């Protein structure tokens, strides 16, 4: 099964890699941007930025970059938000409150506890009335997200925004999800044949183990730290580094992604 597609926008947000130029610098061997900050969200007002759940702020930081690079308004693409653990900050709040004072649970934090909180805030902030979905593949959420996004591209000739993100855990969940660095990465995909793509790619289902060309050590460390950062080799491929990436999955097929022959 071979699916061709174009990437027309990309974004990244994690400590040391706050935006696409920072990723390009790291790929060129110039290290991490230790003090770099992702640009403030244009979708959230300063007040909303304080109130919005962490999952929204984390995912928007990459998603807004990808839409801007694609030259699309955030309302235009259909969107797939993929996260292995969702909003771990709210999980910690919910479970502590239910243990101590269940009757004092905050209604706002409850409705923000749904896995589609980030995608819901995106839809509201962007005014996106098309489909905006939220999926999970646990540690394989990058693979799962790409499968869902490619199937959507086949279904309709409409750009698809894919956002893969995962936060670090708060409190006792850290022992089960030991991630140190929150990460989000985003792509805007179109069907093959776009006039000015960042990259023209082909995806094939594959049962091969995860594989990619060598990356600078600081990026390899991030891939080991946060399963969402398994998107990094694909972002590197889009940035022109490497020839082929395999995103595996513990259950079901993975995807082998390579440059499309022109």
């Amino acid at each position, binding site marked *: *099964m071979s*699916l061709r597609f174009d990437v027309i926008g990309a974004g990244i947000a994690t400590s040391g890699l706050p935006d696409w130029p920072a990723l390009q610098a790291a790929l060129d061997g110039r290290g991490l941007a230790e003090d770099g900050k992702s640009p403030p969200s244009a979708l959230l007002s300063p007040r909303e930025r304080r109130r919005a759940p962490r999952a929204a702020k984390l995912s928007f930081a990459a998603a807004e970059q990808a839409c801007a690079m694609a030259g699309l308004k955030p309302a235009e693409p259909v969107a797939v938000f993929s*996260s*292995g*653990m*969702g909003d771990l900050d709210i*999980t910690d709040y*919910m*479970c*502590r409150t*239910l*243990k101590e004072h*269940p*009757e004092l*649970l*905050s*209604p706002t934090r*409850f*409705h*923000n*506890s*749904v*896995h*589609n*909180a980030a*995608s*819901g*805030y995106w*839809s*509201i902030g*962007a*005014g*996106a*009335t098309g*489909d*905006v*979905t*939220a*999926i*999970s*593949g*646990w540690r394989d959420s990058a693979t*799962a997200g790409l*499968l*869902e996004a*490619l*199937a959507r591209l*086949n*279904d309709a000739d409409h750009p698809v925004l894919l956002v893969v993100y995962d936060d670090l855990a708060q*409190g*006792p*969940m850290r*022992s*089960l*999800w030991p991630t140190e660095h929150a990460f989000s990465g985003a792509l805007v995909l179109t069907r093959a044949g776009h006039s000015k793509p960042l990259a023209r790619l082909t995806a094939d*289902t594959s049962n091969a183990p995860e594989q990619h060309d060598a990356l600078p050590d600081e990026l390899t460390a991030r891939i080991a730290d946060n399963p969402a950062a398994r998107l990094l080799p694909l972002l590197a491929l889009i940035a022109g580094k490497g020839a082929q990436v395999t995103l595996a*999955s513990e*259950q*079901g*097929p993975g995807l082998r992604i390579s440059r499309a022959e022109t």
Partner: protein
Amino acid sequence: MKPLTITAMTLTCAAGTGLDAVRRALAEGRSGLRANDFPHCSLDTWIGRVDGVEEIDLAGDLAEFDCRNNRLAMLGLQQDDFIARVDALKTRIPADRIACIIGTSTAGIGVTEEAYRDMGEDEVFQPRHRLPRVHTPHTSAAFAARVLGLDGPVLTISTACSSSAKVFASAARLIEAGLADAAVVGGVDSLCLSVLYGFHSLDLVSDQPCRPFDRARKGLSLGEAAGFAILENDAATGFGQLLGWGESSDAHHMASPHPEGAGAAAAMREALQRSALGNAAIGYINCHGTATPLNDEVEARAIASVFDHPPPAASTKGWTGHTLGAAGIAESVFSLMALRDEFLPAGLNLDDPEEEWAGFILRQSRQQRVDAVLSNSFGFGGSNCSLIFGRLAP
């Protein structure tokens, strides 16, 4: 779209464990709701709790998945020969070409709650709660694929109360794209303190059994359910066919519907357009119908904006409670049963209907053959999904 056939299905909810039990409850007008008896919860409300979940034993290599949600999933999978039907499917289609797509909103959060409750001041989970495969939204799809031995794409959709309606759309797209040849879809959500106290904090829970579309409705009753279905191409027999689906976003508010139901109407219109059916072909609507004062009115007005002459419609949540992430699959099964059994269920506890805007809501269940049914599921985050199922030619 190219229709897909539902060749097997099952449902376990408060109204019954397995299709026959659910059918009997529908025929007898018997609700599955009971006064709240959920452990560690003192709220004065009614719940759709499934009996027998606690007795399910997930042992051996399934022990790492042990939580109420996966026990409920296992109880559901054990009904209606579903596991044998999947095994038979695997003799026709290789397991690596069968996708497994499950919707859930609660997933295993009940165990996370318990782990916090039982941990000491050292803030370390007890060994029995150190289950990384449980404390993730993905637990239900991973569990179902493990139990059923499916090696195609395994995805969790978690968009609150539209989750397990959207599994049908996702499966149809994967099959159309050639990423799978068939799919097991489903939804599993289980009662837990997060949803009981959470919906209570939003003032959306009734202290009485829910009364969808009744003037005296005061809110929802929470429930739990597990349902599954097999979707195949080119099958001659089955419960019915998936003819269309529509998905949209309200882009309005996290927990309140768009006041004019614009997103709900858009989802229904897209499903109709994909099905290539005229509006008149829809013979029954299974409403989302949660029985909150606002949701029911917005949905009824959205239906009236799409259909000049709305068909008979009802919410089945009086039988099951609102099963959240499992509502989509539960109501898809109700819709397919309506087609197959030629029986249109009315809502329970509907004594005083809102004639001005909900005159088309069915007052009495009735035997009637219809050719197509629309099922609506709407969730937090303004996530909407409408599905259309059609009768298979005999």
